[in-house]
Structures are given as C-alpha cells and as structure tokens.
C-alpha cells in the first residue's frame, strides 16, 4: 500500500502546496484506481492470418478500470505475435487497422475507459434475456478484428496519443463544469500534465494523484467520517472547516461532472449542484428521481389513517432500475459531491450506468 495521503511530509518530497488529502478520500480513490475487470480477447476467427495457432487465439487479462484500450494493445499484441500468429503471415498486419467489438456487436470506442466499457456492457445485458445476463464476475468477451476498422464510428484513431488528447479534453471539460474555467489544469506545468497520462499508462497511483490532487476537489475530512446532518444552512460545512480552502472544496463546485448512461444508448447530462436550493445536500437518489422519474419513482404517499391502521407507512418505491458507479451498486443516499470527488474516473467524470432490476 502506498503511503500517499497519509504521509504528510515525506522527507524526499517538498511539502504539498495544498492540504494533503484525507485518509478516507485517498482510500476510495485507491479502491477506484485498483479496480480491475476481467477481459477475454478473441481474434475474429475469420481474420486469423494463415498458419495461426488456433488453439490459443484467446487472451485473458485483468485490465485496470482507469485504463484505456489503446494502452492494453502492446500487451495483447505481444501475446498474439509470440504465441498465436505465424511470423511470416503477421508481417502484413497493421496495428492501426485493429479494433474491438463485444460479442453482441457493440463497437468499443478508443476513448472510453475500460471500467466504463465494462459497466456499459453490464447494463446493456440487464435488458436482455435474464438467463444469459452478464454476471459481474464473468469476463467481458471482446472480439479483436485485424482489418477494415469502421473509422467513422470509432471516431478517433487507435493511437495512445489521440487517446491522451481525448483524455485531457475530458479532464478540462470536467474542470469547466466544476468551476466555470479550466485554470486548475492549464495552470499545471507541461511535465505535470504529461505526468497525469503517464500515471495512467504505468498504472501508478502515486504518480497520477500527486498531480491530480491539484485538480480534483477536496473533501473536507469531517464530512467523510460522519453521516450528513438532515438539514443544514445554505453555507456548506466545508466553509467552516478552515483546513480546506473554499475554492477547492467538493461542496463548493458549481456542478458535479456527471454522465448518465442508459442501456445501449443515450448519454444524459444535467447540471448537478452539490447543494440544493433549500440548503440540503444533493444525493444520488434526489438526482435520479428528479431526472429519471420513470425509472426511479418517488416513494408513494402513505395511505390515509384508518381505524385498523392508525399510523400507515408509505409503501416503498418500486425498484425498477439500479445505478452502477465504478461497478458498485451505489447507495441512494450518497452525496453527489462526495461521489464526484471520490468515485469519479481518472478523467474527473462521474459515470452513472443505469441497469434494469430483475424483479
């Protein structure tokens, strides 16, 4: 385990320019970072070059959720070249022609994180036949094609460089949603900006978060340890916590960068303030019942009292759908500000995937 965030003044490092990240935030960020998903990669049998070893055309791997397909390519390529492909036949293969789709024929975009691809597959499977549904522990089966990429639909070239550009764009877009500008990212030195991507490439938590903690919002340490009060003043509690500068606090952002994914389709975005107009904290449940009321209905009102039942309870809201964040069924009471600071992807976006419950 790393000591980052728990070591306040490491002798070999300069003191951090901002308040060091508290233990609980670091814990959840590390859990997200270490999250991995099983992949089964199979070359389309019709496209295997001559003399390939057909018994071995499948490659299994645990891929980090925060990584991207172009970053996995060297490992996959090495396996195929070493074990499967005939050397002479493989000479004609061009890696820029390679592309992936799922068994169901969904194209995989180069600029989506592995975790987002996996969760999207989980929710898309939730609307199909239950017996064939994708279980959380089975590998996601990917078909690797070696020719004729549908460039129009893949949108970006498969290079790590264009993936990096897309990543930086996403990071800035998230920053703009939070603060109304991208000063936090443009204020980083070039080496620091590059370091973010290198951290993902090398899957190095410390390298990534050494820079990312200058960009991502801070969670006041008092908040993550105790349940939120039922109601509060319009001024967020972080304002009272002198340790956290207002301008960086998770509860002071304009809006939390959130994308909502529905099975097989559209991506929804809304402005999601961390604190509601009445001063209460915005929660996942509030957000979902407000913006997707057909899937997340409000709890129906209690029936009127009667002689036999003088204190009627409201019936529970029907469970039609579930929210998945970083592969985790997320409690409805979770504060969106906290989710945005602790469970966002490396690009700063909180991706909420909505699946259908099997009643």
């Amino acid at each position: 385990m790393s000591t980052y965030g728990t070591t306040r003044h490491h002798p070999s490092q300069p003191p951090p320019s901002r308040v060091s990240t508290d233990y609980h935030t670091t814990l959840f960020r590390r859990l997200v970072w270490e999250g991995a998903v099983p992949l089964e990669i199979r070359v389309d049998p019709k496209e295997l070059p001559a003399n390939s070893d057909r018994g071995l055309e499948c490659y299994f791997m645990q891929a980090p959720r925060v990584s991207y397909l172009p970053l996995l390519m060297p490992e996959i390529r090495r396996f195929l070249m070493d074990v499967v492909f005939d050397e002479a036949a493989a000479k004609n293969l061009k890696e820029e022609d390679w592309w992936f789709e799922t068994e169901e024929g969904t194209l995989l975009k180069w600029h989506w994180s592995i975790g987002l691809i996996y969760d999207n597959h989980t929710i898309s499977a939730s609307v199909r036949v239950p017996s064939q549904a994708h279980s959380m522990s089975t590998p996601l089966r990917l078909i690797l094609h070696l020719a004729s990429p549908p460039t129009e639909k893949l949108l970006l070239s498969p290079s790590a460089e264009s993936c990096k550009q897309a990543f930086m764009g996403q990071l800035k877009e998230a920053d703009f949603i939070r603060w109304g500008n991208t000063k936090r990212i443009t204020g980083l030195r070039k080496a620091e900006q590059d370091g973010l991507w290198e951290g993902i490439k090398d899957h190095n938590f410390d390298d990534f978060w050494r820079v990312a903690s200058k960009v991502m919002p801070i969670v006041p340490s008092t908040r993550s340890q105790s349940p939120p009060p039922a109601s509060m003043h319009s001024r967020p509690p972080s304002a009272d916590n002198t340790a956290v500068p207002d301008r960086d606090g998770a509860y002071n952002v304009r809006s939390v960068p959130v994308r909502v994914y529905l099975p097989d389709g559209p991506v929804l975005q809304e402005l999601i303030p961390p604190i509601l107009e009445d001063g209460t904290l915005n929660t996942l449940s509030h957000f979902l019942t407000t913006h997707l009321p057909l899937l997340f209905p409000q709890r129906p009102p209690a029936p009127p009292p009667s002689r036999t039942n003088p204190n009627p309870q409201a019936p529970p809201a029907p469970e039609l759908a579930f929210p998945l964040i970083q592969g985790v069924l997320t409690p409805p009471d979770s504060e969106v500000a906290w989710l945005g600071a602790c469970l966002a992807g490396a690009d700063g976006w909180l991706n909420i995937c909505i699946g259908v419950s099997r009643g």
Partner: protein
Amino acid sequence: MSAQAILYEGSEEAQEALNAIQTYKSPIDPSIKVILLFKAVGNAPVMKQTKYKIKAGRTFGHVLHLLRGLLNFKPEDTLVTYINQSFSPTPDDVVSNLFKMFATEGYLIVNYSTTPAWG
C-alpha cells in the same frame, strides 16, 4: 429494440423499466435547434457567417464535419476546436448536452484553430 419487450413476460416491474428506458431513449425532437457561434483563433480563416442553427440531437462530430465544409478544409488540414476557449469535446458528445452545460447568452461558442491554442 422492440424484441426486448417480449423477453420479459415474467416481471411487471422489469417491463415498466424497459418501457421507461424506451421513453428516455427516444431521439431528441428534430425541431429543437441550438445556435452555434464560430470564432476563429490565431491564423484560422474568418467566416462571413459565424452563427449556425443546428439540430440539438447532432453530435459534436457532425459540428466538426460542418465546420470543415464551411472552411473548405481538406481531410489532411488540421482543425482544432474548443468550447469557451477551454476544452475540446469528443466527437460523440451530443450538442444538446454541450449546449445545456456550456452555452453563453444563448450560443454555444466554438473556437476553431489550425494549431492547438489552449494548453
């Protein structure tokens, strides 16, 4: 997509959820349009007309395509775009989402350049 409905005979709630998803998936009304405001950066050619109405359901990739056409750019010409002088969206970002999040005084401002402009 309609085939999915048949698969769920057993559960009334699952059926309700599938219906809800169909409702949310329905494409954005093509009559809803937003206005893009193109602004040239640096040496990029300036256009006479800078405001364009576009269907809100279009992707940003479509905007890039439109802009390339307006500028008579060849496929090999570099075109870099930014929203609000800040960030480059991905081609699958939907214009309605970008407008909702980033519109300024009724316009979605798209800065365009022939070289990367903002770091």
